[in-house]
Every structure is written in structure tokens, then in C-alpha cells.
């Protein structure tokens, strides 16, 4: 009998590992790819060169009026006029909120940032309590801070809210409210009880079938016509309800997709242990399904975050709307590129942050080793 002896591991062939190996396989694997790589490098280089030249080297950063942005002989700007963003920054962030009360928004944003940081960073002590605080107590604090009317704070009507604050309020409330409603709708749509299932299906198919703009118009223009005179509902509240209704229908379908991916055996094993429906869903099915749904859910969150700018058509001034009105100011000619770039950057930064966090979360929750 001969003994089984495994062969020793040999090193891989050269030029297939490390930086050079990566470049070879990905960028210069054959002559066509080499040409495409060189063309791409040329155009990307040009774009970067233009932006550095326009946006940094020739740009003006400090000052307070348009005269701080120098012009050349033809009367054109030399570079980007970031002075404009600087001068209007407070308005972009706080909208028309009274100057003397801006500390309230800052305090609210400060608490919010701390909460989110605490939830995102690993190893925060008492994370469960922080989550409860963020979800249930913080919204109350935030409401009274922003709206006032109690605890000796002056009332600031919602029509004075605007800018990035408004964008955040719309997005965060929309996200936080639409996920649980979406989960309930998805469970309802998969329920064996015909009435609950029908209600869920009708709700989802109705709200998914109409454009968000229509929903917002309905909420702001049509709804008051049906109300008895004098029962004025706040315009922001109506827009928020519209957004939540709309997004929860989308969320429901994302959640349903995740639920369908959970094998039947998981339901059966939970039932065989004697778990009730809600325990089975809460302990076994949803934790697994939500993990699978992270890409879809975050995708919906990101879409919602950007969709909030549609509220400008019903006269709410979110970040985009306030910037658009700012660039029509005759005191600041030709600053639209700077303005749009700033808005784009703000939206991008937040969406990219959500996206990165979701990827980290997926890695962290991956325990299946499949």
C-alpha cells in the first residue's frame, strides 16, 4: 500500500499577481484594450485638468459679492466663483429660517449626526437604546426644535423651512416611515387572508401606478378642495404623507422580493418549533430577508432622497429649488454651473454615504458562508 502524499503548493506564474499583474489583465490584455485604455486616460486627464484649472487654480474662494470674482478682458470669469456658494451658504442649508433661530436647526442636526454616528460605528455601548432613542424620541425633539410653539420656543411655520434642512426632513421622514409600512404591506400581500391581501394589492398597485409628481399635486392642490373650509392642513405635512404613501408601495415590493427568497424550509422549521406568525416573521424570516434586501432597500432610499427635490413644483423650497432661485439673482450673474455642481455634490455625498454604509452592512451581516 502506498501512502497518499499531497503535492506541494507552487507559486503562481510571474506577471499575474500584484499591481503589474492587475494592469496586464484588466487594462492591457490585448491591443484593442490597450488603445481603449490610452484613449480613456486622455479624456479623463483632460476633464480633470479642466476642472482643476477652472475649479481650483483660477477659482475665487473668499469675498462676499460678485466683484470678488475677477473677470478677464472679454468680461468672462477667470474661473469658478465659489464666493457665491460661500455668500449664500446659510440660505442653501437653512432656507428662510429666521437667523435668530438657526441654532435650533444646528442643534437638531448635531443630535441627528451623533445618533447616526453612534448607530453606524461598531461597538457603541447600549446600541439598542440608542436605536430606540433615534427612532422614537429624536423625532419628537426634532419636531419641537424645528417647529417650536412649545417649551418657550417661537413657532416657525413650515413655509419658512427650506434648503438642505427641508431636503433632509423630507428624505429622513420618508425613509423612516416608508420602511415599516412597506414591510407590513409586503406581509399583507403574501397573507393567506383574502381581505388583507386584496387591500395590500390595491394599495401597492395604485400608488406604484401614479407618478410622484401627480401625488404631490393631488396632496397640495386637490386635497384642500375636499376638506371643509378652515381645516387647513400644513403643506409640508401633506407632501410628506404623499411621499410616504408613494414610497411605502415601492418598499413593499422590494420587501416582497426579499421574502420570496427565503426558502419554505425556514418557515416550516420555525412553525415546527411552535413560533407564532409574528415571532416567526420577526425572528427568522425578516432578519434573513432584510439582509438580502439591503441593496434594494438602499436603492429605494437613494431614489427617495433625490426625488425629494420634486417638492419644488408645489412651492416647497428644498436645496435644489433654493439654489435655482438664487442663480436668477441679478447680483450674481453666471453662477449656475457653480450652483448646480454644489447641489450635485451635496446629493452625491449623501447618496454615496448611504451606498457605502449599505455595503459595509452587507459584509457585516453575511453569516451564511455559502
Amino acid at each position: 500500500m502506498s501512502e497518499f502524499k499531497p503535492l506541494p503548493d507552487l507559486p503562481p506564474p510571474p506577471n499575474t499577481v500584484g499591481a503589474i499583474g492587475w494592469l496586464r489583465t484588466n487594462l492591457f490584455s490585448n491591443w484593442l484594450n490597450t488603445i481603449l485604455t490610452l484613449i480613456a486616460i486622455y479624456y479623463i486627464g483632460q476633464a480633470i485638468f479642466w476642472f482643476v484649472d477652472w475649479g481650483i487654480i483660477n477659482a475665487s474662494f473668499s469675498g462676499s459679492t460678485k466683484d470678488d470674482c475677477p473677470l478677464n478682458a472679454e468680461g468672462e470669469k477667470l474661473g469658478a466663483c465659489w464666493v457665491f456658494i460661500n455668500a449664500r451658504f446659510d440660505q442653501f442649508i437653512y432656507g428662510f429660517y429666521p437667523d435668530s433661530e438657526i441654532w435650533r436647526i444646528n442643534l437638531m442636526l448635531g443630535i441627528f449626526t451623533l445618533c447616526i454616528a453612534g448607530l453606524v460605528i461598531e461597538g457603541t455601548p447600549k446600541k439598542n437604546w440608542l436605536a430606540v432613542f433615534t427612532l422614537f424620541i429624536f423625532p419628537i425633539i426634532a419636531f419641537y426644535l424645528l417647529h417650536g410653539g412649545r417649551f418657550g420656543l417661537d413657532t416657525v411655520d413650515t413655509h419658512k423651512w427650506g434648503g438642505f434642512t427641508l431636503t433632509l426632513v423630507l428624505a429622513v421622514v420618508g425613509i423612516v416611515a416608508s420602511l415599516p409600512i412597506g414591510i407590513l404591506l409586503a406581509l399583507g400581500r403574501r397573507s393567506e387572508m383574502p381581505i388583507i391581501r386584496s387591500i395590500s394589492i390595491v394599495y401597492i398597485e395604485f400608488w406604484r401606478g401614479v407618478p410622484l409628481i401627480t401625488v404631490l399635486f393631488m396632496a397640495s392642490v386637490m386635497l384642500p378642495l375636499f376638506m371643509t373650509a378652515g381645516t387647513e392642513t400644513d403643506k409640508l405635512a401633506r407632501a410628506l404623507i404623499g411621499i410616504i404613501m408613494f414610497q411605502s408601495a415601492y418598499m413593499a415590493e422590494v420587501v416582497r422580493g426579499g421574502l420570496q427568497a427565503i426558502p419554505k424550509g425556514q418557515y416550516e422549521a420555525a412553525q415546527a418549533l411552535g413560533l407564532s406568525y409574528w415571532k416567526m416573521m420577526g425572528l427568522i424570516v425578516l432578519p434573513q430577508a432584510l439582509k438580502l434586501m439591503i441593496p434594494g432597500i438602499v436603492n429605494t432610499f437613494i431614489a427617495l432622497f433625490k426625488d425629494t427635490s420634486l417638492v419644488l413644483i408645489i412651492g416647497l423650497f428644498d436645496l435644489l429649488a433654493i439654489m435655482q432661485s438664487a442663480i436668477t439673482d441679478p447680483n450674481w450673474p453666471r453662477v449656475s454651473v457653480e450652483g448646480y455642481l454644489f447641489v450635485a455634490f451635496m446629493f452625491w455625498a449623501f447618496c454615496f454615504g448611504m451606498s457605502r454604509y449599505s455595503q459595509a452592512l452587507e459584509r457585516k451581516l453575511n453569516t451564511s458562508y455559502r
Partner: protein
Amino acid sequence: MTTEKTAADAHKVMIQLKNVNKWYGSFHVLKDINLEVMKGERIVICGPSGSGKSTTIRCINRLEEHQAGDIVVNGIPLTNDLKNIDSVRREVGMVFQHFNLFPHLTVLQNCTLGPIWVRKKPQKEAEEIAMKYLERVKIPNQALKYPGQLSGGQQQRVAIARSLCMSPEVMLFDEPTSALDPEMIKEVLDTMIQLAESGMTMICVTHEMGFAKTVANRVIFMDEGQIVEEDEPHAFFNNPQNERTKLFLSQILQH
């Protein structure tokens, strides 16, 4: 093999199926199933695929609903009453072909879930119970791993421990070794034999005829949704009465 039981136990009917019928749509999958299982009895159900053997045991803990006839488990009739269904499921443990462990929970959490959330035991006590049974199935050192990190045989043993943590009166096995690599079948069968020796009432759907010979009190052969033949293992394997049983046995015992 110890078969002696106390007189009181031997006369206690644990599971009773009376004229149980079930249809999938218009397909008549169970036809007049009558079965009585005493406390401490070990039943093996065999038969070709599609014969209704899995469906029969899945009816016993209401993973499938029967449409006619009566099923009584430990004195509790299985009706549409959710309370009865819940109490039956608490008394009946089930082990599945594909283990169905919860992949997002550790082995220990898989085992403590039922005791904590169904039996309302405090976490510490539940963990002690879980470790006791994980030791019995010989994998206490894997308690903090996730199911995906274990081999198939280990996963199935965890699944057995998970059911035992609920201290069930009856254990149902639905082809527990069919999804396993040949190298791992023995470790699961050993666990089941050990469990049988402890006096657990067991119903096993399995094709492991060796297991049936050593462990079962009675072997039941099913085909086309009916119980064709039922006898104690020696008579069943050496002197089958029905032609269909003879054919089945000749096919599975020839190698």
C-alpha cells in the same frame, strides 16, 4: 435493544390518525390513513417517492392540513383552532431532510430560540438546556459557529438538538439522512439510535433499512397514499405479505 416499558406508558396512545384524507387540489394524496402510535414506540415509514409518507408525518404537526378524518396528538385534537396547533407543535419535534437550520443564528442561538420564545425560559436556563443536548449529539464545541460553517452531518445533529431543546413528547424525522454525504449518514443514525434508546416516541420516514431493523417497533410501508402493510421489522423484512411490499423490498435491498 431495550424494549421493556412501564405498563402505564405502553397503554398511552401518543398519536392517533383516524381515516385521515388529504387532497392537493384534485390529487388524492392521503387515502384513509389509520395509525396509532403508543408512547415510546418507534415507527419507521418507508415507501416509494410520492407515496405520501412525508405528507403523513407533516400532517401530525400541521405543516400540512388534512381535509378529512381526525388526528389526535397527546390528547390534543388537531383542528383549525390555532391554540391546539400551537400546543401540538410544542409537543412534537421535527427534523427535516434539509436540516432547515436558521443560517443567521449561531448553533447555540438556533437551540435556544424555541425555549426562550415559546417556552418562555430565561436565557441562561435555555443556554444550559441547549448545551446539554449539544453534548448529547456530540458537538458542544461548535456552539458558537454558524450553521454554514458545519458539515451536513453536524448540521443535522444540531437540528436534532434544536428539536430536543423543546423537550418534545414525540420526534418526527422526515428523511433525515437523504441529503447527506455517505460519510456522514452514520453519525446521524447513531444519534437517532441513541435517542431511540432513551425511550423517545419516534416516527421516521427513512430509506435506511438497517436503522429500521435495529430500532423500529413497527415498519409501515406506504404506496399511492395508503398504508399497504405494517408489521414488526423481522416479519416485515423476512415475510412481507403484500406483492407491492415484496417488489419494493427487492428493489431497495438488492445492493
